[in-house]
């Protein structure tokens, strides 16, 4: 089971073991990680599960779809090159140790 490290807006770190195939959004909301809203429940239409992928993981992730790129243009917090929507990031064994940070606002 891949482990994912989440950095909350406060700086606190939460490490979770996710099921392979589970989205990072799902893992975070189920565990009650702070800093994520995920209003639409994972359909890539609300941009409230925005996260910053920490080095060196960005290049190891599948590239964002066109839809995700468009949604990222409207995130509430600052958009950075490492911005992704956590509902579109799927945990796999190859991504064990993946680390993401949630911004201080989602809407």
């Amino acid at each position, binding site marked *: 089971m891949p482990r994912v490290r989440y950095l909350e807006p406060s700086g606190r770190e939460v490490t979770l073991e996710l099921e392979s195939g589970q989205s990072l959004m799902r893992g975070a*909301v*189920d*565990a*009650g990680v702070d800093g994520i809203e995920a*209003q*639409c*429940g994972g359909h890539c*239409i609300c941009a409230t599960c925005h996260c910053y992928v920490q080095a060196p993981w960005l290049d190891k992730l599948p590239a964002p779809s066109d839809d995700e790129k468009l949604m990222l243009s*409207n995130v509430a917090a600052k958009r950075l090159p490492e911005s992704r929507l956590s509902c579109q990031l799927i945990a796999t064994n190859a991504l064990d140790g993946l680390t993401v940070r949630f911004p201080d606002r989602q809407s």
Partner: protein
Amino acid sequence: MQSQAPIVILGAGQAGVQIAESLRQEGFAGRLLLLGEEPHAPYQRPPLSKRWLAEAGSLSALSLRGPDALVRRQIELRLETRITAIDRVRREVHPSNAAPLSYAKLAIATGALPRTLAVPGASLNGVLALRGIADSLAIGAAIRRCAAEQQPVVVVGGGFIGLEVAASARKLNAAVTVLEGMPRLMSRVTAPIVSEAFTRLHRSHGVQLLFGAQVTEIVGREGRVVAVRTADGQEYPAGCVVVGIGVLPDDVLARAAGLACERGIIVDDCSRTSDPLIVAAGDCTARRMPDGELLRLESVQNAVEQGKAGAAALMDRERPFRSTPWFWSDQYDVKLQMVGLSPGYDQVVTRGDLSKPAFSAFYFAAGRLLAVDSLSRIADHMQSKRLLDRGLSPTPEQAADPLFDLQSLLKEATADGA
């Protein structure tokens, strides 16, 4: 003892959960009691008429927050707890199956109930409406049986819920008839050009759509529905009937307790009710707008934002909900995203390809943008949302010009320091 009483939240849906979480974020350290009527932990309702209905997903796929999330935030969840009364003098709520519970402050997030058809036969077996998980499971089972027995599913109501159920039923290979009382689909919320696109979409997927259809009777045999009769004397055979004719705010407890209600519990933009110890959020509310009008919204965003506002108000802070309303619907492979409120428009222009459909309808009043409906046009939706949030408006000519970059208005505004 009064000071040790918890904040009690009635309703463990999207709004109730948001109030609980936001209270913790606002720094509330006291006891927090979240009461739900259903046997299920907090879950998402939008998928109940969409993908989850067609795919019969797992309950965990619907989960709004896992049990760990509530434990971590010290939110005490009590399920299968139906409240029969609010006593504002004694500051208690009365569960049907337990002793009264005291509250220091109270939040009401009781949601909405489906409107029922007031015609003979409306309570026959096989006549269904959608509110919760149990309803979605029952509708899914009925549709599958109809598909297997080659009997049509009749959907009464061509609004969001009805059309999403219709699309799901087609995915399950059931024949579908939609009976809409008005002359077009989703007439309450969209312009004719959008209704027409959805009419073509559903017909291209084999749905039989009828307009101006006034249901007068649901015909049964041995207690089970067999047909739906309309005012023009037509009878539509039905293996099951799904009624999706809108919802009514569940303000029964609030009304009985003497809170100001009018088509919902009246709240201000900070989710405060007429009682300073009580807030309300989500589908059960009617929000008083600056112009005095009452605004009723039924959406996830409304539940979340009113929930945040209500939690702040319980902490004696003002965090008004003023962002632009948005909504979404999925039907087949079309993603409908709506932002803003279109009533009062005097002009509609479109951008994109009407035939696909992949276009947006821009609603204007006196040349000023009010709202945008986007069909599989995410960029239009997101850009319009930002424009509306900032009070910016393209001209109708700019909106209709596919070569005009809407984003440039945002950049201009930023450059101007707006």
